[in-house]
């Protein structure tokens, strides 16, 4: 294993921090930490990066305990939330910084190596620019190049895309993924955007209040969430009570059929192009249903419908169904 977190606990106070965190990361893996604000994602990265010392537990890289190494000695690099580029240095100097101090290259050599990384992130021509004058996307690339330039075994990325607009985000996301594939860099990526997590990751770590609640491939997480929290956080889900049992169903796993005597009435329709969202309600329940394709045009507001459930979450999931870990 490349990286192992063995039962890491780091508490700032009794509510904040991370607890009992286990994670193993293989070479070339792309891992995403996903969770709401304040759940401890940055804290986890800071522990791996060496900016924080855990209260308990160990961090191993390639079979070595690095728990007590200072950041400057760890073979990991971080792309910080909002980048933390050095404002007094230009693009080239920023990228060369780690080459000089981490790789201990001579200044001249460092600058020429830095140019290659600048080329990789396609910023040729901006070498001498002040980083403050770059656009958000460009800054992000500088941060990436700077972090990669130390040849880290693991690249840690803390919400690198969150400051960018939607379309830029989309394209950078793809570039990042292809770069990762081509160079085979192991990455741990933090986001609270579920679609980012699903589309990029080999595996996702869903976090809540300092706990890693579920670790699995995007499919596992999406189709077999181990708790209603996970199900709710990734994708949408309806909660239904059937014969005294509560079950969860994704909107796209509900099929509607028009029926004048149907149990449900369509109360609102949101047309989204590719798909359409319907809110349907019976006496005591309200459900969200997603319909894809042409079928769309069949339903009108006020229509009465019957529903069939094609897949039900948690039924075939591994482990305990919907067991919410005891908190605290």
């Amino acid at each position, binding site marked *: 294993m490349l990286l192992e977190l063995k039962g890491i606990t780091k508490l700032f106070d009794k509510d904040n921090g991370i607890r009992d965190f286990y994670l193993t990361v293989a070479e070339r893996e792309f891992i995403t930490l996903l969770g709401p604000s304040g759940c401890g994602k940055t804290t986890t990265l800071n522990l791996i990066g060496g900016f924080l010392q855990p209260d308990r537990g160990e961090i191993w890289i390639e079979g070595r305990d690095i728990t007590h190494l200072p*950041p400057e*000695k760890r073979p990991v690099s971080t792309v*910080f939330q909002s980048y933390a580029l050095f404002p007094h240095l230009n693009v080239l100097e920023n990228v060369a*910084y*780690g080459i000089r101090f981490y790789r201990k290259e001579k200044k001249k050599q460092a600058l020429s190596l830095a140019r*290659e990384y600048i080329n990789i992130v396609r910023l040729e021509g901006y070498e001498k620019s*002040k980083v403050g004058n770059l656009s958000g996307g460009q800054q992000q690339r500088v941060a990436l190049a700077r972090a990669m330039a130390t040849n880290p075994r693991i690249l840690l990325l803390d919400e690198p895309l969150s400051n960018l607009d939607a379309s830029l985000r989309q394209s950078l996301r793809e570039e990042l993924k*292809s770069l990762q594939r081509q160079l085979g860099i192991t990455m741990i990526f933090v986001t609270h955007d579920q679609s980012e997590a699903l589309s990029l990751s080999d595996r996702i770590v869903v976090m809540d209040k300092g706990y890693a609640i579920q670790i699995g491939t995007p499919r596992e997480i999406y189709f077999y969430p181990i708790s209603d929290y996970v199900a709710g956080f990734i994708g949408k889900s309806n909660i239904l009570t059937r014969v005294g049992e509560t079950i969860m169903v994704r909107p796209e796993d509900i099929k509607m059929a028009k029926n004048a005597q149907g149990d449900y009435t369509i109360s609102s329709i949101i047309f989204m192009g590719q798909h359409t969202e319907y809110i349907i309600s019976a006496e005591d329940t309200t459900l969200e249903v997603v319909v894809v394709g042409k079928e769309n045009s069949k339903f009108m507001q006020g229509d009465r419908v019957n529903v069939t459930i094609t897949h039900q979450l948690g039924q075939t999931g591994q482990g305990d169904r919907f067991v919410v870990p005891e908190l605290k």
Partner: protein
Amino acid sequence: MRCPRNMTLLKNKIIWKGRGNKSPLSFDVLIDRVILFLVVGSLLLFILYPIFMVISTSVYRHGVFSLDNYRDLLSPGNLKLIKNSLFVSTLSSVLGTFFALCIALYTFLQKERIRALIYRLLMITLISPPFVSALALIMLFGRRGLITYNLLGLSVNPYGWQGIVLLQTLGLISLAAIMLISTLNAIDKRLILASRDLGAGTLQTLHRVILPSIYPAILSVLFLLFTINMADFGTPIIIGGKYKVLATEAYMTIFSAADLGKAAAMSVLLIPPAIIAFYFYRKNLEKNNSLADGVKALGGEGLDFRLPLFIRIALGIITGLFFFLMLLKYGNIFLSAVTINVSGKLTFTWKHIEAFQFAYLPAVYRSLHIAVIAGILASVIGILLSYYTHRRQLPLMKPIEFIASLPYIIPGIFFGLGYIVGFNNHPLLLTGTTAILVLNCTFRHISVGNKAANAAFENLDRRLEMAARDLGASPVRILTTVIFPLLKSTFLLSFINTFTACMTTVGAIIFLVSPRNVVASVLMFKDITNGHYGLGAVVASVLIIVTVAVNLAAIKYLGREGGKQYVA
């Protein structure tokens, strides 16, 4: 992203590099420890120890513990002095703060250009050799004053508390206004816009938003002025006439009665108000931080904010008047350098300048030398102190920081006394050396750089340091490659302050000079107290010109690059 042409570049270098094996106590870490040790050690040795020595002078008489010096400290005579001191200082500080506020508001509401101009002028008027303002006042408004007597035909007696209040008020307006302008600039302009947006008029916005948000700063300026005025002995000595204050009497006790113990005890009386003032400053600092938390000020450009005409005019008149008086003062100093006052009539003369050339150049050169070194040292130590205290959050640094702020708030003479008492014996024999002057000037002003750095660090993303470490820089490297370059403008501010103060200081070093290490400001003081006003004015003029020149050079050298915008 493009596939790199040279993939081996990355592949080959992915190795352990064996660096992880090294023990954490590498050479750089050692240097870090050494720097920390030097900073803390020097603060203890050059601040705490001398202060301790003065206090012990006041309680030990010939090696025997005695509180005699404190016994008659609260005698009716001294109570009168305390009352006088409190009265004068309170009045001067309130007036000074008020006028500074007017000037600051006026400046704040001007266009960028004018704002920069006023700010620069204020910086220049910070350079004010002691005593010469008092002399200018006498020459302009005295019994044979150029203005009162020659122009208006009056014979006014400037000696007394009114003169002290006038001079102390005028003397500290620049400092106070600069502090207030900085605070005003730090207000989130969106607050003002929001207030206007919510229907408040400009006057209401001033009253409800602007003033409340700088209220803590106003308070801390007020207390700072109060402390400085309490400790000021130079103004009352020249203009006070028979009106006596505590600081002056402490000074006189030293020079006339040569009674160090008693003088030290009197100085101790000045410390409680200083500590109270410091406490307010600290509270204000914390409050300010919570106010400014995470809020980045917008540029002041395009902020359309007009106060009612009569207020604008009033503020304008006050600002104009202040600069007019400053003009008079500096004009008078330069004029006095080349004239002689014969019963109120001025006659041109080269005499003073000739006398100056003869003996003073080495002293001016020495002053310059000392002030530059002290300016650099004080700034570096102040920034390091702030770094270790607030950035690295090392334990026990907070009390050290408090110790570092003491010399700034206690009377200069008191601090100087500590040096002469503390460093006259082996192994700390520094008497008569230039080093003792450098050290005294340096450690007197650590606080300025320290506080500026504290403010700058508040606005500096911690992740920059994390990034630097992540990229392999050791703590020392971070200091040299990230912290200091980013804190350039802080350094500059601190340097200019310390340098200027050292060039013109008298009180703290008057005890430390001897024939071989005399400096220009002390010579000026001697000339003035000996009645050689013309020569004193020449020295003052030279000090002013040299100080302005060095400050400009520093601004040019350090302020050239835009380090400023990141530290706001």
